[in-house]
């Protein structure tokens, strides 16, 4: 019988750090990464030599990204591993750091995400299989097709989808680490440059650069380093699945539903207890679909719940208070770690004007090409 995270040692996030997600610049990935790592160590009050293992999520920096970045903290000889899982790279890096601590392989671990904007090579293009739709179905086209089916089958309109972007852009306007920090109106989003189907540019995520880092520790590590448990956010579960065959149903949504269910079950919580969700809204339609398959709202109810403010900060459940991929941005490697940073900030009650009142339980979700899905459930300090 395989063990669950809850059978093992409790794991806590005790430090978070970010470099702003932004458009491509000349800044070295080393500067991006060090900014986030040093901020996370400072936040935790943990000196770098105490970190026993590090996982770095990255997709477009080539091989062996960890040491060129981390050696500038002073070399300590610790285990360093690069993690690539497409959009879920940072989420998988976090999962591995959490599992190391839970299993007792380390008391102090770091998960890092760092990336620069650059073309990525996909193994799918090297299989030798020539797809019928070669070069045709780019990610915006894929999601525009899902949007067309979703909106038509539910009698919803383009403005229902645009409200996702409206909420997330306006959340990000208050987030100093967000790529897009401009307040928007519904009219602006709807009238923006059309990309595919009903999707406009402001309903598609920006892919730029940035970095994020978190420190995770065991109770023993927390005691040894004198860390205040009142700011320690517990990781209740970590679930990761890959795509199955779903016929004509949306694989992104089906995979999201199954992985979320596993994460909630293993955390021993109900979906109705969730106060914060950070999800893979690379394209606005995804938020509507995923909130339904996650069970956050009933099938077909996402547009009306969104319109009624249920997913706003201060609503029933705050969805992407960071601004999500749509507006906080999607530098890819850092994205999943950035979600954990936002949820930790929220569950500590330190999110300032973006604070979801009385946030006790948070859920982080990413889908990566392939497709893979990673979901974590985190709980506020007792």
């Amino acid at each position, binding site marked *: 019988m395989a063990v669950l995270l809850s059978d093992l040692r409790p794991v806590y996030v005790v430090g978070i750090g970010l470099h702003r997600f932004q458009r491509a610049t000349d800044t070295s990935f080393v500067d991006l990464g060090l900014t986030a790592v040093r901020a996370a160590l400072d936040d935790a009050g943990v000196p770098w030599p105490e970190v026993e293992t590090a996982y770095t999520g990255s997709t477009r920096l080539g091989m062996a990204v960890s040491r060129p970045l981390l050696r500038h903290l002073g070399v300590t000889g610790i285990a360093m591993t690069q993690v690539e899982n497409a959009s879920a790279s940072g989420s998988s890096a976090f999962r591995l750091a959490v599992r190391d601590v839970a299993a007792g392989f380390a008391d102090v671990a770091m998960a890092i995400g760092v990336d620069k904007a650059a073309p990525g090579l996909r193994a799918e293009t090297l*299989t*030798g*299989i*020539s*797809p*019928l*739709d070669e070069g*045709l*179905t780019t990610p*915006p*086209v*894929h999601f*525009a*097709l*899902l*949007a*067309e*089916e979703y909106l*038509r089958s539910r009698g919803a309109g383009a403005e229902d989808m645009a409200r996702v972007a409206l909420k997330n852009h306006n959340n990000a306007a208050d987030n100093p680490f967000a790529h897009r920090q401009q307040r928007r109106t519904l009219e602006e989003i709807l009238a923006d*440059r*059309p*990309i*595919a*189907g*009903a999707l406009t540019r402001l309903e598609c995520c920006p892919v730029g650069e940035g970095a994020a880092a978190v420190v995770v520790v065991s109770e023993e590590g927390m005691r040894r380093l004198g860390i205040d448990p009142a700011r320690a956010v517990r990781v209740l579960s970590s679930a990761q699945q890959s795509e199955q*065959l779903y*016929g*004509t149903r949306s694989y992104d949504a089906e995979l999201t539903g199954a992985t979320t269910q596993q994460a909630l079950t293993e955390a021993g919580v109900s979906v109705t207890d969730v106060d914060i969700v950070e999800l893979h809204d690379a394209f606005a339609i995804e938020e509507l679909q995923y909130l339904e398959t996650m069970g956050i709202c009933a099938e077909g109810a996402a547009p009306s719940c969104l319109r009624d403010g249920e997913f706003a900060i201060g609503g029933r459940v705050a969805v992407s208070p960071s601004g999500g991929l749509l507006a906080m941005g999607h530098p890819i490697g850092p994205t999943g770690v950035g979600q954990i940073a936002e949820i930790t900030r929220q569950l500590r009650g330190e999110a300032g004007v973006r604070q979801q009142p009385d946030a006790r339980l948070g859920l982080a979700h990413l889908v990566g090409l392939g497709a893979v899905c990673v979901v974590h459930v985190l709980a506020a300090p007792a």
Partner: protein
Amino acid sequence: MPTPLLPLRGIHCERCGHVATPVQHFGCESCGAHGADVADRPLTGEGTVLGAVTVHRPGGETVRIGSVHLQEGPMVRALLAADVVAEDRVRATETDAGLLFVRGDH
């Protein structure tokens, strides 16, 4: 010589009955059968449109792209004729621009 686009071809798994396209010889995604258990077969090229969108390409050109649920089971993404909408029944044709699904009764 490029491979002709039509008839569309797919693989039929003799072990579990799964039909998929495009053709590949690596193994059945449904049950893992491979080798002689996975046969290359022609498909009718007929299906129903699940969703269709107009895509704006850089430079201002627009194309129509859709999800087509083929009669034999697989779902493919492909170029559509400009007048095709969701729920239309379509068939595959070959044009200078490649594969194109047009309206057509089966």
